[in-house]
């Protein structure tokens, strides 16, 4: 499961970078979204829509209360893995 999720997260981020005229050679779980990959809030919003399409869930839409911090690629993987386990 988590293999699929991490693949999907990496693919979504690569699409975002590609669509905005940037290229990522690799996307690793430990990478920081803004510092290492250069993602801004629009990029993150796009990543979430793409992940909703590929994984079928949007953990941010239903989230009530405080949103967990999303700093690293691994944070995204954890949030989506949990959302898929619950669905």
């Amino acid at each position, binding site marked *: 499961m988590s293999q699929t999720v991490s693949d999907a997260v990496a693919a979504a981020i690569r699409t*975002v970078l590609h*669509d*905005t*005229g940037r290229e990522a050679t690799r996307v690793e779980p430990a990478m920081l979204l803004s510092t290492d990959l250069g993602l801004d*809030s*629009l990029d*993150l*919003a*796009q990543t*979430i*829509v*793409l992940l*909703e*399409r590929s994984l*079928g869930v*949007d953990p*941010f*839409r239903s*989230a009530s209360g405080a*949103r967990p911090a999303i700093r690293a690629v691994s944070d995204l993987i954890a949030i989506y893995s949990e959302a898929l386990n619950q669905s």
Partner: protein
Amino acid sequence: MTAVDLSRVNAEPAPERLAFAIHEIARQAPDRIAVVAAAGSPQRQAIEYGALASAVAAVERALSAAPPQGVIVRARRVDALVAVAAACGRQGVPVALLADDARDLVGELRDWTVVDDTLQVPGSRGGRTRVADTDPPHVVVATSGTSGPPKLVQRTWDSVLAAARLAEQWQGLGWLMAYDATRWAGIQVWAQSVLTGGRLVVPASRDPDVVARALAEDQVAILPSTPTLLRRLIASADPTLLSQARPERITLGGEAADGPLLEQAKQVFPGAKITHVYATTELGEVFRVSDGRPGFPATWLGRQLPGGIRLSTRRDGELLVQLSRDTAEVATGDVVERRGDRCEFTGRRSDVIVVGGAKVFPKRVEEVLRGVAGVTEARAYGQPSAITGELVAAEIVLADPLPAGASPESVRAATLAACRESLEPHGVPRILDIVKRITTTSAGKTSRRPLVGTQ
């Protein structure tokens, strides 16, 4: 074609005018074609004024035998709808013309009688005391729901028929019926055609080839359309069929017409006079522009125009209309911007996509998308986002065939690059899908709603 004298039509009271015109044409030229149903397809069927008049008479007899509270027309066939509406008008029975998406609203009209394509009028319930009529017979239509949920509105026959032009030059022409016959724009087309002894050409579908064949085979002279439907016709219909169509007039309405579309239309239909009409549900027709350029002359702002209309804009560019000196200014919800000597429409206020607090007009995005080689149609809409509120999303339709050397991937990449070049960063579509056909509303306009569900 036998000449028909229609000089007495306008003297009739508005509610009776349609039935009068149909009977008058049927009396003088019973073989003249009133409606071409399923035009452009093998199922094409012509209905003559003689047959239409008989249908009106039959409905009138049933209505006068047992007058119902009101009639809800649920006809799929335009000729049936016209017959019932005309009969109701002359018999003083209120009539509701409702599109499919307004069917939920019929609860408000629960004592009314439903009449469908069979033209049978079921026994009336409750009955209607004709003597106590305080309100004149009227027409009930639903608003299109582009801005908010559809609701029922009551119109007098006078207002329904007010815009019809009855002068000699408008008589006996072929009219394309690309609109839903129950919508305001559609009602205007069939009423205009019937009142002038015209031929109403109803294509079997909105498929571009079907519409093009209908235009050519049934010699359509007047082509009323939304910019979205005309763009699709020009981009996708078989060029041979298109070259056989000879419209004399193209009347665009319902959405703003952009410069490139006006240019293309001029090239494809060199003989046509192209007009775009600005109208709103609340105000009806406000003005029309025929100079082949988008928007309207900027000099119109702040001045009394012929007819007493005064246009102005709010600080944010929203167009305000004052129909006459003694009426209040109405905020139209349409935003205009000054480009050179013109005021051009940037879009509807309610269509604005808000991305992290920044506003994006989808129409502007669509103009950039359609400017890319290999893209024929486009729509932009707001995709809800928990992070930024909304994101700009878009759909494009690719040209068939694609330009030499292009692939779907290369066109998609070129589209995004063009957007990055011409739009603010938040205006660049973040979701860009290649589709076979863009989503349109039942009124034939480009939909601004997100897709339902994911793909």
